[in-house]
C-alpha cells in the first residue's frame, strides 16, 4: 500500500485533517525499518559465507598448509573483532552481516581442517561441532533471513546426525522404526518449544517468528506427507508399537501448553493449532497401530481435512495470503483425488458424483460464509507469531 496516496485519500474524504496526515506520515517514516537494506545485507552475508565454503571445497593448491591455516585464523580473528566492534558500537546492520559471514566461516574452517589433515570422519561430526560452537554467536542475529539460515544449519546438522545414528543402530526393523518415531516426536517437541522460550521471543522476535513459521510449515507438510501412509497396506512388521505412546504423550503435552507457547494468539487460532497437531498425531497413530489394507481414498480425504484445518488456523491468525494459497491447494487436492480414484466405470462414476457433490457443498458453504469471513478479516486479527 502507498501510504502517501492513502493519506491523501483520507484527507480528501474528510476523515483526517492536514495536521493529522502530517503526524501519521512522520510516525510511519520513523517506524519504517530499512527492510531492503537488511535483506540485501543478509543475502550478501549468505553469499560470502557460501563463497568461503566453496573456495575451501575447491581445495586450492597454490598455498601451503601453514599459510592456509594462518590465513584462516587471521580471517576468523578479523571477523570476531569486526563483530565485537559493531555490536559494541550499536551498528546492528554490520553485526548481522558479519555474524552471518562468521557462521559460514566456522563451517568452512572445519572443512578446511578436514581437507588439510585428511580427516575421514563422517560429516555429521563437523556439523555437530559447528552448530554447537556457534550457538552463542548466533544469538546476536535479529533478522528473519539470518534466523532462517541458523535454523537451516541446525536442521541440517540434526538430519545428518540422525541419518548416521540410524545407519549404525544395528537393531531389528521394528526397534529402528520405534527409535525413528520417538526421535521425530521428541525433535518436534524441542523445536516447537525453543522459539517460544520467553527470552528468545522477547529479545529476538523476528528470529523467533521465522523459526515458528518455518517449523509449523515443516510440521504441517510432514503431516500431509504422513497421510500417504494410507496409500500402502500396513503389515505386522511395519507397526512401530511402543513409540506411538511417546507420540501421544508428546502431542498431548504440546496441546496442553499451546496457549502458553503463543500467549498473544487469538483463542480460535490456538484451537486451530491444537486441532492441526492433534489431527496429525491421531491419524498417524490410527494409521500405524493395526494391520490394514491400503486405503488411498482415506489418505486423500485426511490430507484435505488437514489442509482445511491449517487454512482455518492461518485465517484466525490473520494470514490472508496464506489462507488463499491453502484454499487453492485444497481445490487442487480435490481435483487430483478424482484422478487417483479413477478405476472401473462404477467406481469412477461414484467418485465423480460424490466428489462433485462435495465440491458443490464446499462452494455453497463458502458462498454462505463469505460475508461473515470478510467482516472478520476486516477486524485485523493479531498475528500469533
Amino acid at each position: 500500500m502507498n501510504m502517501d496516496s492513502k493519506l491523501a485519500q483520507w484527507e480528501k474524504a474528510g476523515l483526517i485533517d492536514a495536521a493529522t496526515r502530517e503526524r501519521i506520515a512522520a510516525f510511519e517514516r520513523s517506524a519504517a525499518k530499512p527492510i531492503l537494506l537488511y535483506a540485501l545485507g543478509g543475502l550478501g552475508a549468505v553469499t560470502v559465507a557460501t563463497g568461503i565454503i566453496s573456495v575451501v571445497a575447491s581445495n586450492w593448491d597454490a598455498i601451503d598448509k601453514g599459510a592456509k591455516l594462518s590465513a584462516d585464523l587471521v580471517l576468523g580473528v578479523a571477523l570476531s573483532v569486526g563483530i565485537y566492534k559493531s555490536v559494541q558500537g550499536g551498528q546492528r546492520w554490520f553485526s548481522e552481516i558479519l555474524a552471518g559471514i562468521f557462521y559460514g566461516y566456522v563451517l568452512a574452517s572445519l572443512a578446511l581442517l578436514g581437507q588439510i589433515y585428511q580427516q575421514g570422519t563422517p560429516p555429521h561430526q563437523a556439523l555437530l561441532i559447528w552448530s554447537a560452537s556457534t550457538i552463542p554467536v548466533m544469538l546476536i542475529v535479529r533478522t528473519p533471513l539470518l534466523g532462517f539460515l541458523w535454523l537451516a544449519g541446525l536442521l541440517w546438522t540434526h538430519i545428518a546426525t540422525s541419518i548416521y545414528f540410524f545407519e549404525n543402530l544395528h537393531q531389528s526393523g521394528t526397534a529402528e522404526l520405534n527409535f525413528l518415531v520417538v526421535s521425530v516426536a521428541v525433535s518436534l517437541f524441542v523445536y516447537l518449544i525453543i522459539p517460544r522460550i520467553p527470552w528468545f521471543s522477547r529479545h529476538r522476535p523476528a528470529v523467533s517468528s521465522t523459526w515458528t513459521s518455518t517449523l509449523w510449515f515443516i510440521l504441517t507438510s510432514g503431516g500431509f506427507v504422513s497421510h500417504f501412509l494410507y496409500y500402502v497396506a500396513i503389515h505386522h512388521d511395519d507397526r512401530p508399537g511402543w513409540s506411538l505412546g511417546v507420540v501421544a504423550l508428546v502431542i498431548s503435552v504440546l496441546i496442553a501448553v499451546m496457549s502458553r507457547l503463543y500467549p498473544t494468539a487469538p483463542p480460535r487460532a490456538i484451537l486451530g493449532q491444537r486441532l492441526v497437531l492433534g489431527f496429525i498425531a491421531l491419524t498417524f497413530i490410527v494409521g500405524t497401530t493395526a494391520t490394514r489394507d491400503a486405503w488411498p481414498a482415506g489418505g486423500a480425504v485426511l490430507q484435505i481435512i488437514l489442509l482445511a484445518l491449517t487454512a482455518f488456523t492461518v485465517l484466525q491468525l490473520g494470514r490472508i495470503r496464506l489462507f488463499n494459497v491453502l484454499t487453492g491447494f485444497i481445490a487442487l487436492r480435490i481435483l487430483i483425488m478424482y484422478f487417483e480414484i479413477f478405476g472401473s466405470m462404477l467406481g469412477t462414476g461414484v467418485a465423480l458424483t460424490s466428489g462433485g457433490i462435495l465440491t458443490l457443498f464446499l462452494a455453497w458453504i463458502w458462498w454462505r460464509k463469505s460475508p461473515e469471513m470478510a467482516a472478520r478479516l476486516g477486524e485485523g486479527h493479531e498475528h500469533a507469531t
Partner: protein
Amino acid sequence: MRRSFLIAALLLPLIVIGLGIVRSEIHLARGTLWTFDVDGYDPRDLLRGHYIQFRLDLHEDSEAGECGDDEGELCCLCLQKTLEAQPPTVYRRRCEDAKYQCDGVLKTQYLKTLTRFYIPEQDAATLEAKFREAAQRKQARLWVAIDREGKPQIESLRLDGETIHRDEK
C-alpha cells in the same frame, strides 16, 4: 548483550578450530607411520571438495584372525613390520591382546575413516588418472599415523613413491 558473553561467544568457535589444528598436529607428530596399499575411484564431496575414494588393500591373513567386524571396537588389526616402507603383515586380534603382541595396532572401527583423500579441484582429473594407473601396479600407498590408542590419521598418499600433496609436506 554483556561484553564478557560476547567475547566468549566469539572466541568459542576460534578455540574449537585451534584445538582441531593442535590435536591433528600432535597426532601426526606422535603417531607411528604405517603404509598400506590402496585401490579406488574419484567422486566429490559438496562440503569438503574433491577427493579420491579408495579401499585399503590390507593383504589380511584371514586364517590367523581371532575376531570379526561384528565385535565392533573390541577387534583390532594387528600390524607386524616387514621391510622398510612396505605394508605390514596384517591379521585380526582382540584389542586387549593386540597391544602386547603386535608392532602396531589399528582399531577396526576406524577403518571406515580411511576411505578418502582430499585433492585440489584443478588437479582432480590428472590425479585420478595417476592414481588409477599406480593402483593397478600396486604402487598407490596410503601413509597413516597411528597413535597408541589405535586411532589413525592419514599422513599422505604416495603414487609411485611420490607424495601427491606436495605442498603439504
